[in-house]
């Protein structure tokens, strides 16, 4: 019996709200016997079946009495036997057809039959503890679950295959060997060892610094792929911002509902644009105001704007450029802005060329239902250009902050080495030790309790 995972956990593995199939997972030493208790099929019960096999059948409830147990759902049941499973324990996967309500009833049935409801990330935690995944791979699973687009999923699955681990390990090994050379120049007098030339070590550390900088750059890509590009719609009141939001959304399927509770006056919606996730935010109108609530909304809009990957500035083309418009336009980042000249059907007081210096101008009439294809094209061009063409890897926020720390330490090491003072070597060696420690935290090569905690607390239930 597995001493760590001596109980059996169960959870719904599919995200809530999705229609179609629901998957319920069961992992642990009693997975097979619990399945026997709740599942009926033709032929052998699950516990007598081979690993990696599936069988069609029904999940029954435990009603006793005359009528006998009732069917909860018609399902496909998959059997994985330890250690050939995701967690390396026995795993049963139940694919139900009845949607979310049925899935919850199945889960309740499994718990009544002896399973325990899984903690967030517990399946992956078990996989990690059983040596099935390394830390980077475990984090990739998290990303995969949260992936909002095909391209984010590709990235996460690359990471799952270990490509990121090997990249990190290369840098790690380079730093370790450079540090070791520095250390030996401290521990041996010149005569004891064949001299290690500082410039040569410097070169190697510099290579590591460049690799790290490149890795950090991929964070921006990762951020866009993982979280979706943040697109903020701004403009003065009543120029058609909400209409634009609806136009963009109705032509696509919204996959994220508004973020409830956090804002009264900004609305965030998501959609997929050419395989990329986009988070669309409609902000409060930008104008001078005495109303406190509105001012608050405008301040919040400002914070969105600061983080935005793209800003869409909407204006009423029929009235022309007012002073407030002028101020707002001047603040735009030309390479990452789209200027929508709305309401051209009411007359055109502003020409595209007049605003071209502030962003990409698009003329349209949203109210007439003119499909804003031009807007979508411009949007996807800008988002694509923000993604470096390095497809190799992308890193998460936790990785990013550790890499930033690593880079700080490596830079300090390089500057100490450049001091031309022998005493710099000692401090450089120290800085490299710090760098190695930070980087080791990425790959799990240095152990910290809180590291594991922080990684696993982010997992959703079910994986």
């Amino acid at each position, binding site marked *: 019996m597995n001493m760590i995972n001596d109980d059996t956990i169960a959870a719904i593995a599919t995200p809530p709200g999705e229609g179609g199939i629901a998957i319920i997972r069961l992992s642990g030493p009693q997975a097979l016997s619990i399945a026997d208790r709740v599942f009926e099929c033709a032929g052998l019960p699950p516990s007598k079946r081979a690993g990696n096999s599936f069988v069609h059948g029904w999940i029954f409830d435990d009603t006793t009495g005359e009528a006998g147990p009732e069917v909860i759902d018609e399902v496909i049941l998959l059997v994985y036997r330890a250690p050939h499973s995701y967690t390396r324990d026995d795993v049963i996967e139940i694919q139900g057809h009845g949607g979310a309500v049925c899935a919850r009833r199945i889960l309740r049935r499994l718990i009544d039959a002896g399973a325990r409801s899984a903690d967030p990330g517990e399946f992956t935690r078990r996989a990690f503890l059983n*040596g099935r995944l390394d830390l980077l791979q475990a984090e990739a699973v998290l990303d995969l679950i949260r992936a909002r687009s095909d391209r984010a999923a590709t990235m996460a699955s690359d990471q799952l295959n270990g490509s990121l681990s090997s990249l990190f390990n290369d840098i790690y090994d380079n730093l370790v060997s450079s540090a070791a050379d520095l250390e030996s120049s401290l521990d041996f*007098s010149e*005569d004891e060892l064949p001299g290690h030339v500082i410039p040569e070590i410097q070169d190697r550390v510099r290579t590591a610094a460049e690799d790290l900088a490149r890795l950090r750059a991929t964070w921006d890509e990762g951020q866009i792929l993982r979280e979706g590009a943040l697109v903020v719609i701004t403009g003065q009141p009543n120029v058609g911002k909400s209409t634009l939001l609806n136009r963009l959304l109705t032509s696509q399927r919204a996959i994220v509902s508004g973020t409830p509770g956090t804002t009264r006056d900004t609305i965030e919606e998501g959609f997929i644009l050419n395989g990329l996730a986009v988070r669309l935010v409609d902000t409060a109108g930008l104008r001078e105001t005495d109303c406190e609530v509105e001012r608050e909304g405008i301040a919040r809009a400002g914070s969105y704007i600061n983080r935005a990957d793209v800003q869409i500035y909407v204006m009423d083309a029929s009235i022309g450029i007012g002073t407030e418009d002028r101020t707002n336009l001047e603040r735009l980042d030309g390479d990452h802005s789209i200027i929508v000249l709305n309401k051209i059907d009411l007359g055109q007081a502003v020409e595209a060329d007049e605003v071209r210096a502030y962003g990409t101008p698009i003329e349209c009439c949203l109210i007439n239902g003119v499909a804003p294809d031009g807007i979508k094209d411009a949007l996807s061009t800008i988002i694509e250009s923000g993604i470096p063409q390095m497809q190799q890897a992308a890193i998460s926020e936790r990785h990013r902050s550790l890499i930033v720390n690593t880079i700080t330490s490596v830079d300090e090491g390089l500057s100490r080495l450049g001091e031309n003072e022998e005493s710099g070597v000692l401090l450089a060696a120290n800085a490299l030790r710090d760098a190695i420690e930070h980087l080791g935290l990425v790959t799990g090569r240095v152990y910290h309790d809180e590291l594991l905690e922080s990684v696993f607390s982010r997992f959703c239930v079910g994986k």
Partner: protein
Amino acid sequence: MKYGVMVIGAGHAGCEAALAAARMGVKTALLAVDRTAIARMSCNPSIGGIAKSHIVHEIDALGGEMAVNTDYTGIQFRTLNTKKGPAVQATRVQCDKAFYPTRMQAVVDQTPNLDVIETLATDIWVENGKLRGVRDSNGETLAAETVVITAGTFLRGKIHIGDESFEGGRIGEKAAYDLSTSLESLGFRLRRLKTGTPPRIHRDSIDYECMELQPGLDPPPMFSWRAKRELFHVEQSGDDLFHVEQSDIRPWRPGSDQIPCYLTHTTPETHAIIEANLTRSAMYGGQIDATGVRYCPSIEDKIVRFRDKSSHHIFIEPEGRINDLVYPNGISNSFPKEVQDEFVRTIPGLSRAELVNYAYAIEYDFSDPTQLDHSLESKLVENLYFAGQVNGTTGYEEAAGQGLIAGINAAIKVIRGTPLILSRHESYIGVLVDDLVIKGTDEPYRMFTSRAEHRLMLRQDNARYRMRDHAARIGIVDPDMVSETGRYAEQVESEIERLNRVRRGDRTLAQILRRPDMSYGELDGRDETLPQEVARQVEITLKYDGYIQRDLERIEKARGMEEKAIPEWVDYNAIKSLRTESRQKLNEIQPRTIGQAARISGINPSDIAILSVVIKRGRA
């Protein structure tokens, strides 16, 4: 007569162990095969060097003898790594090979509570699982409450010179075979290591004008608080009558009349001869299969491993004032005598060298140190301690550091106190012991500064501040030193506080002092009345301040793991999710805390995670 502590072997570990125990007031016996071989220097008569010097300073701060003995018998004093910063600066002293042991013997003889027994120990005497003492080669039983084994390279020692080989613990001394057998029968795992020593050359057969002169430093850097202080008083009074006490050696003032070393090098002819004769070397001919010292390689090793290097340094080091021999540092080997004669004479300045003793290599048993606790007491037999080369280390300093700890802890066991366990962040001795008992070793273990995680805090200049509380508790250092250290520590603290407060323009004095080119002596606003040592501590502490703060934070962060005990009920065999090799390692080493477990080589983060989960749940 029953002793409280009985030490087997009067080498560098044995002397420290016996002296410490006796000074703590416990009746102690030191077993030596030959009284005149006490504290003999098997190899190069030099003490200190990078990282080793740190250990010697700690020994001094805790009340050991090595530092004092070195200062009072040194013939050349140097500081290494002077330009690389105080944390890696080290003192190295060439001792007089004859006087070092003579003085140590005199100290041993004059120490109350300490008897020297001239005999060869053959058996650890255990009855009903309880340690009773030692049996010797005369069939006598010697009763003792605790026993410290410091047998050095003597356990099943086997000497090789070229294709010749014979039993011996050191050249001219008998090996100890029975003791190995006795330890094995008690269940101890013994393994093999090897080491070597170069030939010795008659000093009159050397042409020094072909070599580079390497003088000692003046004023001489010293290890011990006592020598530094006495020297200071001598200088103050102009009194020159300072002498090596406790012996009949001609008086001289420590550090005076230093004898220079010389530097020469191997030539292409040397390399050619060595290459041509590789198969005749005991090591390369395959006669020895034990693991050697990677960091102190034989000349064969250096030539084979660094083929692109056409020349290696050789230091010509005198062995003493009245001793005719010199030690050619850098050409230890295990060639037959005639090959040694031939290649040595191709070295500039050695063309007519007369080899008085030939180089040899020695293979010996060591006891796997993971069988010990941090107090150096064995887990298999209560009250039995191991220290020195017998634990797989190499070097006098590493041996002495362990000897001191084992002797103190054996005495504490007798008087029933809390053992002295030094941590990794307060001392090199702590690093040494922790590495040995947690990681073990596959090759002769030598100390390096890179082994210490908190290197900037573990300097030789602050050893006595780091060791002060322990020294006060153990109580075998001069009380004046403890109180002076306390006084200085306060002065350092208040001066740092002042420098952080007082400004010159828009910067504090502390900020000004932190500039790379600034020293306390040049600081406008310095306190002229501060003792020099205090000023130095202030300067170093401030210069490393940022780094030391970060280190302290790291120590604090690790404390949780370091202190999280692994309860007795944890049964690694029952934790099936641990990998088999991890289970084996954990069973073998039996770490006491999660922090220790995490340091075991081969134990990875997921093993630790599993272990933490098991402990948290409170059941296997």
